[in-house]
């Protein structure tokens, strides 16, 4: 067993953690498991690819890789736009579907079911537009850098780890130090009381959709950059995202990130010990263990 699995696990875990923060925030405020969250990752990646491609058609200099990375300026620009568009997509789905069901007072499980239908439609729409053929942001190849201790990573991978760290700290500060974060935590604990205390609950729901979608978009773009872009990109990550969100404790940002890393590292370890074909079962095993031993997760509050 080479120590490289630690690096692989960290990178996979960073992407899972970032996505799981979105799941945990939307879950804690919207109060249902959103099966369409994975599709926000996929849509983020495809939107960034389409925008980056369009930028490249206008100016080829923006496609020239920024050393030492594999991509040109078109990708960072596209990322910003894709974050906005993914956020708008989530708001649109909420306005058309979830918001209406919520106002009608539908049971949690109806919302779960609607998210299931939305996930199906959104994923197949990507397949319809882009086909199921894998796509890539760039064709440039990267050489892994030796980091010592037997670890290697490409500059893209290191950049993704750094970006994840920045994003996690930013979200954590937003939740703990700002008025918006306080309001979000209040809504997550008791929406009715939050309303009485003057918090505009509907606005907070829009904020959390946008935030969750933005994080999903970043996670999707990173997955696309480090692996490949497929319509099933998000769907295949959904179980790890749920497992991480529940393991971390619903509503806990640091919990989701830590749990994401645990899931990623366990997957990498399983690939080493059991074989790559069993990777997808790791999240399920973790989920079962959490539900058996501590259903509220590492940092969750008791139900």
């Amino acid at each position, binding site marked *: 067993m080479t120590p490289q699995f630690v690096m692989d696990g960290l990178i996979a875990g960073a992407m899972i953690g970032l996505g799981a923060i979105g799941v945990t925030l939307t879950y804690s405020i919207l109060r249902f498991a959103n099966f369409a969250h994975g599709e926000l990752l996929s849509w983020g990646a495809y939107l960034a690819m389409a925008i980056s491609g369009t930028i490249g058609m206008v100016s080829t200099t923006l496609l020239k890789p920024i050393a030492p990375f594999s991509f040109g300026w078109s990708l960072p620009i596209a990322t910003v736009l894709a974050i906005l568009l993914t956020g708008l997509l989530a708001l649109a789905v909420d306005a058309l579907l979830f918001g209406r069901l919520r106002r009608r007072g539908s049971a949690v499980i109806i919302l779960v079911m609607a998210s299931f239908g939305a996930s199906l439609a959104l994923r197949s729409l990507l397949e319809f537009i882009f086909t199921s053929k894998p796509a890539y942001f760039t064709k440039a190849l990267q050489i892994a850098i030796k980091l010592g201790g037997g670890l290697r990573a490409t500059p893209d991978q290191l950049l993704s780890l750094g970006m994840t760290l920045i994003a996690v700290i930013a979200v954590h500060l937003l939740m703990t130090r700002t*008025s918006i974060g*306080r*309001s979000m*935590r*209040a809504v997550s*604990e*008791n929406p*009715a*009381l*939050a*309303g*009485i*205390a*003057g*918090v*505009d*609950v509907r606005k907070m729901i829009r904020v959390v959709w946008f935030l969750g979608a933005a994080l999903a978009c970043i996670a999707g773009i990173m997955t696309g950059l480090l692996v490949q872009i497929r319509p099933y990109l998000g769907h295949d990550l959904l179980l790890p995202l749920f497992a991480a969100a529940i393991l971390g404790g619903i509503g806990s940002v640091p919990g989701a990130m830590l749990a994401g890393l645990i899931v990623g590292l366990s997957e990498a370890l399983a690939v080493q010990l059991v074989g790559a074909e069993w990777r997808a079962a790791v999240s399920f095993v973790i989920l079962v263990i959490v539900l058996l031993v501590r259903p509220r997760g590492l940092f969750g*509050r008791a139900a």
Partner: protein
Amino acid sequence: MTGLVTTTPALETRALVAGYEPDLPIVRGVDLSVAPGELLVVLGPNGAGKSTFVKAIAGVAPIHGGSVTLAGRDITDVPAHRKITQGLAFVPQTENIFATLSIHENLQLAAAVLPKPVRPDRIRALYDRFPDLAIAPSRLAGALSGGQRQMLAVARALIVDPPLIILDEPSAGLSPKIVSEVFEMLQRINATGVTVILVEQNVKAALKIASRAVILVEGQIRHEGAATALLDDPILAKLYLGTGHARNHSREAELP
């Protein structure tokens, strides 16, 4: 009360109908006028609709008919989160603080409806008024005792200096000693000119501090009058012993 007729009521409901299902209203046409500076207590047997009545006024229970006016402004359709800025503060019966936020965060959250520059001063003023809360402001509110929780809930509601505060059974679950502390606090708040509306089960204690009382039965006002006069009125015993209404009470009490 005749002298107050010409002044604008602090709160007025007209033919208010409210409840969770439109075809099964719990509040069935309530006309109530509260003069500025009153300390009004709303009494009534279990399931009479007292709680739904004040929740409807606060915007957390659906209104199906009638109107609510606050100091002359119609607030019937104003969403719950805007009522606090209009000067109506509401303290629910249970879960009336954010247990996962610190004491200070509870107050900061409530202060967010105020302009930024005045927030720290208002919070400081409340700490002066409720010194118990100032002892450890960074403690999680969930760790507070029952009486302290009630203090924090009231402090939270008072942050905007509202002309009217409505409390849903502030004495529920508290020991008699704490109840009298809470009621003294309400009297002090009332003495500063704030109109107070109180839903209570603790009839005797509430009538001692109230200026006026109304009795709700089956979603309608059955009786109203000066609090002191009501203390000895046999109607109280009759309503609370439930003669003639027992069947209805038990049915409503079973609602989940």
